[in-house]
């Protein structure tokens, strides 16, 4: 758990980068710091591991005031991932990933096992990739290594500063999925910086929307989309925030509310979709292909029904727009 208690950060007399920020990241949750460039996301993140000092207020990490902790000790217990992955070119992938365990004095066997476990998490062969150097990996692979390096010593808390920002959209999407998958297994307390609305909606349990160092709103993504607190928030998410919020719902949600269409055995060659897929992706899949329906498969890979643009539209209308209530409608 990370609590920010009325935290303020000034650079010199004039610049107040963070202004009286107050919120809590619950244990095992992802909170995304979202906002336009220069709003103070990076500064706020770096105050947690004391790469920036705190001007006023305090940050409490798992019950301990960060001021009372030794910065070196503290940082070894916090995973830190940055955009330009920060891998060390002079070290092999294994040396990079095992750096913190090494600093902590783990023995060889323990390091070896941990490395193999971590590489399996991201689907890279530890034998092959372990001996390579960072420049021998693709951008996406490097970023994955950056993530598992932060996970190496199993820190309870992770700080991630636009970790996927430099990747192209398709790879970014994949790594986000993969990371959420890992998070379901490791359940870290994560503070995640992003300037990408879609990424924030996808990754966040809660979003902190910042502007000029002040919190505009601190809420779950669906609350924020449905009930923006002020003009800035609704503008920031844009007119299409109803569609954006589709990514918070899955095919399963739709089935529970309005049910799927019947499976028509006569239609061949239709694409299939998994029941846990989010509705935004489902919609774009429907729009991108010629057939106006796709078959839904459940966990056992059985066909359980079909989904159409009509159904998604209906769901959007009743479930999402309906709940956006009286707030500024887009």
């Amino acid at each position, binding site marked *: 758990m990370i609590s920010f208690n009325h935290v303020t950060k000034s650079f010199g007399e004039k610049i107040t980068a963070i202004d009286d920020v107050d919120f809590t990241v619950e244990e095992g949750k992802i909170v995304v710091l979202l906002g336009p460039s220069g709003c103070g996301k990076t500064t706020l993140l770096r105050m947690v591991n004391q790469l920036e000092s705190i001007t006023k207020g305090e940050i409490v990490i798992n019950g301990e005031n960060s001021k009372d902790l030794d910065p*070196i*000790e503290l*940082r070894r217990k916090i995973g830190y991932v940055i*955009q330009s992955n*920060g891998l*060390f*070119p*002079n070290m*092999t992938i294994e040396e990079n990933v095992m750096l913190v365990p090494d600093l902590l004095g783990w023995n060889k066997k323990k390091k070896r096992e941990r490395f193999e476990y971590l590489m399996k998490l991201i689907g890279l062969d530890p034998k092959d990739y372990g001996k390579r150097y960072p420049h021998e990996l693709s951008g996406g692979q490097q970023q994955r290594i950056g993530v598992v390096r932060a996970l190496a010593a199993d820190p309870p808390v992770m700080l991630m500063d636009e970790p996927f920002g430099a990747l192209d959209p398709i790879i970014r999407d994949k790594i986000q999925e993969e990371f959420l998958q890992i998070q379901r297994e490791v359940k870290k307390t994560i503070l995640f910086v992003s300037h990408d609305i879609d990424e924030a909606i996808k990754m966040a349990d809660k979003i902190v929307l910042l502007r000029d160092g002040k919190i505009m709103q601190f809420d779950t993504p669906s609350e924020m989309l449905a009930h923006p607190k002020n003009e800035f928030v609704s503008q920031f998410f844009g007119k299409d925030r109803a569609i954006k919020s589709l990514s918070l719902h899955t095919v399963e949600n739709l089935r529970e509310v309005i049910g799927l269409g019947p499976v028509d055995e006569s239609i061949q060659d239709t694409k299939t979709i998994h029941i846990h897929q989010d509705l935004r992706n489902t919609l774009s899949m429907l729009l991108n292909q010629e057939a106006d329906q796709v078959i839904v498969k459940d966990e056992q890979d059985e066909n359980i029904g079909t989904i159409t643009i009509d159904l998604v539209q209906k769901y959007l209308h009743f479930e999402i727009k309906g709940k956006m209530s009286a707030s500024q409608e887009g």
Partner: protein
Amino acid sequence: MKRKKLIGSIVRYALYAAVAAFFIWAISNSYFDYIFSQSETFLVLLRQHVVLVLVSSLLAILIAVPAGILITRPKFKKAEWIFSNIANLGQTIPSLAVLALMISVLGIGFRTAVFALFIYSILPIFRNTVAGIDSIDKNMIDAAKGMGMKPHQILFRIELPNSAYSILAGIRTAVVLNIGTAALAYVVGAGGLGVWIFTGINLFDNGFLISGAIPVTLLAILADYILRKVEYIVVPKGSRRIEKA
């Protein structure tokens, strides 16, 4: 493609031929004879030369590398540009003058030459150490800090390995220059192979010229070659740069 390869080969073999022709010409005119007829003197001069270079280079490395590391620490960062500019200015002063001016401070002899060579070698090593450390991506250092590495761990595990290439290149430059400058040590009476070169100039004796100049040249080329090999071994594989010539 074929034609281009041919041109390349012609140039290469023409050069080999020119070098071979030079040696045949020099040998047939007995220009190398002093090396054999006065082999004892030659060995003394060669030893003086090598000792001058080794002692002054080692001292320079011992001073310049730590100095470069120190000046790039956050505490001294502000002083960096002053020292770098002094180093740049210093390099415009002719090596001959540095040697000559040391005479009035330390008198004539071996110590004077070593000191002058040492002073002159500090500059390239210092400059390259600073440049190498400064060129490291700040994000990398940030990541290292964020992972909880202590300053000395960052220095030895990240900064030095990743600037090794630049530091070693500075040392190589300094040593090769030093071999040439040591040939001027004659003017401060410190011996070295320069003695024969200057004797050759003064007496218009081609034998002394060649017997002095060729060994100095070979020494420089050999040092360059060895130090490049050392670079290749020492610089970590992942941070080797693709740089030629």
